[in-house]
């Protein structure tokens, strides 16, 4: 079975099926003289729930990040909700329910009220209310917040994991998460990545029917594959993989705290791509020396209004501070295409990837763009922040964006808010047209960063999600190599540095080609950083240049790939 590979790694363990908790109370009719006692029990339980939630919020804030912790603040509001409390108290006083029954009835009443509302966001609150209800019920029953004794090779399997579930898991005993619902950005996926354990999500509800408690399970967080009750052959295959994985991890660990250098000692920047404040810690653990792409879309998603300047500033500052002197390149909003914000109410487009997206949308709606520019500028005071515009196709776009940036600076000056006046600004090179005018574009900015995923998509006219034409979406096509080479050369002719933040930057085969072409910065997902640092040490810039020149003479993607595979084998 295959789901979405949400957090890398391999695990072999025993399934622990997390049933969805049904809110169920031991119902009992109470006598009039018990009313006071039950009211007191209820109040104490509610207070204790708030206290627990406050602790979890603090812990999550430390370990994961403030956005992830925010949910527990919302949970506290639900526990303290005066209307719901009143319904519970009336249940005890007037209907002589015991505290458990009064709680469950009130929670059910409000949960179905929320579920019945039209708004999607509100419907999702139903799960939160039940989650909170379960917490209070557990306290009333006198049970603790820890999960009962898990075996130490547990693989947690659930429909989805609530924030309360993940917060109370015994992390030393859980090897992996597997969920039927969810996506790469769902809570369980983010938690798994920040805990550094493998996870596969989005397997579909049918999957749950095939799992039993205590089954042997293989989780492959790299490919998204899951094997239930695997045969001896599969098992030994994965045991070998696990062993190889462990060995590689040990070997790569030596590159964690050293700078990335070529064999002859030239320093090269190897940095990471992140999509959330919670990704910072794992990146540092993997030896990332900075952030080459900080995607900001997460701030805009899963909500129904735009984030304000203040909220954005807090998130950017947190990352800037956590990275210290290391560079943090924040990319402005790249929405549209496959990522849509329902609350912007954009008309449906025939060709969303060629449509109203990213910088095009931002320049058209400065009221969305400006608060982000100001928030990034303000964060620049707290670290080594750089700003990057996505999807630039024309010179006018850069000029217009820079004009808005200058306005943002003026406004901050008037408000007397500090920012780094020398903050570098750059553009992503992902439109082939931009490569043709790269030299002119380089006059307006301090750096380029090549976004290979979109660059390939636009250069080869290939929808990157279409499996039937996947052969076209490869970085080895001579056309793509030439575009990359020209971008780097054009930047260098004008003395600006050039990085790459697409998948190709972490491509082991492509590494000598990119190094030889003169790439200054490689930005990739955290999982590739150590390996690329190791491989860089196999080459000198001079040797790599020969690879680049030879590769540029080849005529097909296949020839290029075979040539690079050969080169990789001979590299020491």
């Amino acid at each position, binding site marked *: 079975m295959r789901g979405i590979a949400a957090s890398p790694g391999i695990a072999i363990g025993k399934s622990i099926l997390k049933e969805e908790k049904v809110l169920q109370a031991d119902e009992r009719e109470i006598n009039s003289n018990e009313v006071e006692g039950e009211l007191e029990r209820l109040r104490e339980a509610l207070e204790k729930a708030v206290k627990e939630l406050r602790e979890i919020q603090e812990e999550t804030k430390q370990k994961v990040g403030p956005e992830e912790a925010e949910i527990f603040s919302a949970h506290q509001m639900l526990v303290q909700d005066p209307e719901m409390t009143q319904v519970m108290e009336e249940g005890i006083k007037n209907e002589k329910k015991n505290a458990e029954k009064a709680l469950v009835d009130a929670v059910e009443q409000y949960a179905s009220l929320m579920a019945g509302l039209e708004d999607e966001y*509100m419907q999702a609150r139903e799960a939160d209310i039940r989650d909170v209800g379960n917490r209070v019920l557990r306290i009333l029953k006198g049970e603790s917040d820890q999960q009962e004794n898990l075996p130490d090779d547990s693989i947690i399997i659930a429909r989805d994991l609530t924030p309360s579930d993940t917060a109370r898991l015994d992390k030393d005993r859980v090897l992996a998460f597997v969920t039927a619902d969810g996506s790469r950005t769902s809570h369980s996926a983010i938690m798994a990545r920040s805990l550094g354990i493998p996870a596969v999500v989005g397997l579909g509800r049918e999957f749950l029917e095939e799992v039993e408690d205590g089954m042997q399970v293989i989780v492959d967080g790299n490919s998204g594959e899951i094997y239930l009750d695997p045969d001896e052959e599969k098992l030994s295959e994965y045991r070998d993989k696990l062993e190889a994985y462990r060995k590689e991890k040990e070997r790569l660990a030596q590159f964690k705290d050293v700078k990335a250098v070529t064999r002859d000692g030239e320093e090269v920047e190897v940095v990471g791509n992140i999509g959330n404040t919670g990704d910072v810690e794992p990146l540092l653990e993997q030896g990332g020396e900075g952030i080459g792409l900080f995607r900001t879309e997460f701030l805009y998603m899963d909500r129904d209004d735009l984030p304000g300047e203040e909220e954005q500033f807090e998130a950017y500052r947190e990352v800037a501070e956590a990275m210290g002197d290391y560079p943090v390149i924040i990319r402005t909003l790249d929405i549209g295409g496959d990522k849509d914000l329902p609350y912007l109410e954009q008309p449906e487009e025939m060709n969303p990837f060629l449509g109203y997206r990213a910088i095009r949308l931002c320049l058209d709606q400065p009221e969305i763009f400006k608060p982000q520019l100001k928030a990034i500028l303000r964060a620049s005071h707290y670290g080594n922040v750089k700003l990057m515009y996505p999807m630039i196709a024309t010179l006018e776009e850069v000029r217009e964006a820079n004009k808005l940036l200058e306005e943002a600076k003026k406004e901050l000056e008037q408000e007397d808010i500090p920012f780094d006046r020398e903050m570098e600004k750059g553009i992503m090179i992902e439109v082939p047209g931009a490569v043709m005018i790269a030299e002119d574009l380089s006059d307006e900015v301090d750096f380029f960063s090549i976004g290979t995923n979109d660059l390939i998509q636009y250069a080869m006219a290939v929808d990157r999600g279409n499996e039937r034409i996947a052969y076209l979406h490869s970085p080895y096509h001579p056309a793509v190599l030439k575009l990359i080479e020209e971008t780097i050369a054009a930047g260098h002719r004008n003395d600006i540095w050039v990085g790459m933040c697409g998948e190709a930057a972490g491509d082991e085969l492509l590494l000598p080609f990119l190094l030889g072409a003169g790439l200054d910065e490689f930005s990739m997902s955290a999982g590739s950083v150590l390996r690329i640092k190791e491989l860089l040490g196999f080459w000198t810039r001079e040797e790599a240049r020969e690879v680049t020149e030879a590769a540029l003479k080849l005529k097909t993607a296949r020839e290029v790939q075979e040539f690079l595979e050969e080169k990789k084998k001979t590299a020491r």
Partner: protein
Amino acid sequence: MEEKEVTIKNETGLHARPATVFVKKASSFTADIKISKDDKTVNAKSIMGVMSLGAGKGSKVNIRAEGEDEKEAIEALVELIDQGLSEQEGE
């Protein structure tokens, strides 16, 4: 008792985060505060009550406060709604 009618101006209405902002502000006063829309009245300090009002953009709501700081409460809440319930207020 203080009372005032106000029109919701922000895109989202009194939903989601804006509702949270509103309830947090209301909870910071000691006065009893009620908010109503059409013929439904709820406790303004109840997140679920406020969300269940379904007050979208353009709806008229009535806020009533009774207690020591009733004046300040109405003033602050009306201002909050007039400013579009932005999250810059509050935390």
